[in-house]
């Protein structure tokens, strides 16, 4: 039996980022839109100003937008930069329009196909998405060759698209529960997090609560990601704020709107946001105090409970 104590991966967000997120890294972000984004880890990357990142994922939302707004992203490979009802991701949009950041566009299934190749140790994955689209008119800066169009060997004449494996240097996800070894339990939808983690070389998991390994062993079928893929476990209640963690708390509409106001304006206003909520805070708990503290978090818990 694996000795849980010998494989304790609990560390602070600072230690995890220091160890696994380096200048120029390819960073895969879990969660989506206003759901389960690993914001505490993203804050820590910004606080340390780890730069020249390539950010990858299906939907990239406020997590990517903050990194882009802080000037730390040189390229995105993904499906969307979007916050839906709350508008586009303004820092992302501005950085691309100004030529500061490159975007390599795929469909969401395109990104997933690349991650599926990565997670299975395969060089590429076929898909029937993206055919006939202009996503096939640009070549990629990352791999030099974005895709290959082949004929189905078993059905001559049928076109099939091959996309290269995507293996991020580090996957960053937020989960509800994790044990000290790194066995992860995600509640609610999974987004692309499981494929992302299995494709990545290293993984940082932040979680709402650390649970004992004995508890994980009682319900092994509920483990979404076994410890073998996980390198760092960071306990951070409300670590997805202002996005939601299913069964724990709702997303914070007011803070998402507030963020979007600053992001839309950009420039000095956006710098003020970063200063107030990230650079001027010593850690994520400090940020949570500034973002409404106990009162706000309690109301987000109440909103979620009313839905369950």
């Amino acid at each position, binding site marked *: 039996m694996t000795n849980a104590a010998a494989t304790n991966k609990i560390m602070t967000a600072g230690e995890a980022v220091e160890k696994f997120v380096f200048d120029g890294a390819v960073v895969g972000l879990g969660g989506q839109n206003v759901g389960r984004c690993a914001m505490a880890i993203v804050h820590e990357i910004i606080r340390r100003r780890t730069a020249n990142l390539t950010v990858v994922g299906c939907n990239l939302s406020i997590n990517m937008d903050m990194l882009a707004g802080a000037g730390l992203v040189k390229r995105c490979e993904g499906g969307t930069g979007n916050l839906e009802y709350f508008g*586009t991701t303004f820092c992302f949009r501005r950085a691309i329009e100004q030529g500061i950041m490159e975007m390599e566009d795929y469909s969401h299934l395109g990104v997933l196909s690349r991650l599926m190749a990565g997670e299975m140790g395969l060089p590429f994955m076929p898909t029937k998405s993206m055919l006939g689209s202009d996503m096939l008119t640009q070549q990629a800066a990352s791999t030099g060759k974005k895709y290959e169009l082949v004929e189905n060997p078993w059905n001559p004449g049928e076109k099939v698209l091959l996309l290269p494996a995507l293996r991020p240097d580090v996957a960053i996800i937020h989960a509800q529960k994790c044990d000290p070894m790194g066995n992860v339990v995600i509640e609610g939808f999974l987004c692309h997090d499981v494929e992302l983690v299995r494709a990545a070389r290293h993984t940082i998991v932040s979680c709402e609560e650390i649970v004992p390994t004995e508890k994980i062993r009682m319900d092994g079928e509920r483990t979404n990601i076994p410890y073998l893929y996980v390198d760092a476990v960071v306990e951070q209640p409300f670590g997805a704020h202002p996005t939601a963690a299913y069964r724990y708390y709702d997303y914070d509409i007011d803070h998402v709107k507030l963020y979007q106001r600053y992001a839309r304006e950009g420039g000095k206003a956006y710098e003020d946001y970063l200063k107030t909520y990230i650079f001027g805070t010593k850690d994520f708990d400090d940020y949570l105090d500034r973002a409404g503290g106990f009162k706000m978090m309690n109301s987000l818990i109440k909103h979620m409970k009313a839905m369950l």
Partner: protein
Amino acid sequence: MNCSLEELTVIEASRYLEDGKTVFAGTGLPLMTTLLAIKTHAPNLCFVCETGPIAPIVLPTPLSVSDPRLQHRAVRLGSLKEVLANLLQRGMMDVGFVGGAEIDQYGNINSTVIGDYRRPKVRFPGSGGGNDILSHAKRILIITKHEKKRFPERCHYITSPGYVGGGADGRVKAGLTTSPRPPITVITRLGVMETDPGTGRFRIVKVMPGSSIERILSETGFRPDVADRLEEVKEPSGFELRVLREEVDPQGLYMKKV
């Protein structure tokens, strides 16, 4: 008329969703429309959402595909891969339902850029699951505003494929074999256009009350044909309107009543 054109657009779109079918819809008006259909004539319509929920009993009012309200009482809370690959690409989605930034005469959608790709004049969000939906769903519904700039002859950039370069085989030539010849229907405040199966090009099939062929043509950047049998969109029943206002969007977050 007893409702706004925006409301009627949603009500008309909901009539295209048949009971017992499967629909893949994004948030916003596609989701509102889907919920209306489920609560009126299509209680067994299976709604799936790209983040992973399958057949949820949605609580009012989700603002995102990752909204907890969309996960409520789902029969399965799965993953993007399950929904996009195992349902959509596998050919199990009867209807794909999206909004649209720019839609051309062949039903292609641009949600990526205006101008040069590397240094665009305007950068939009990108494909998301949109390309996957248009690539694989057996029937496509699009709900959007009717403005000339949104309906160019040719999209600046094809994010999601309709009939690509046109013709009945426009999609097959591109390799889109999951759904080779889907009807593509776009519903707006002015009327309804649907692709002609022979040409893959939009033609006007219905007009909204108070609208006209001339009005549609003046607000469309290409020149759609007109169907032989042109219909007027039916006004809403009291039931449709009550469910829409009281149960689907009770806070009026997406639709104004006047």
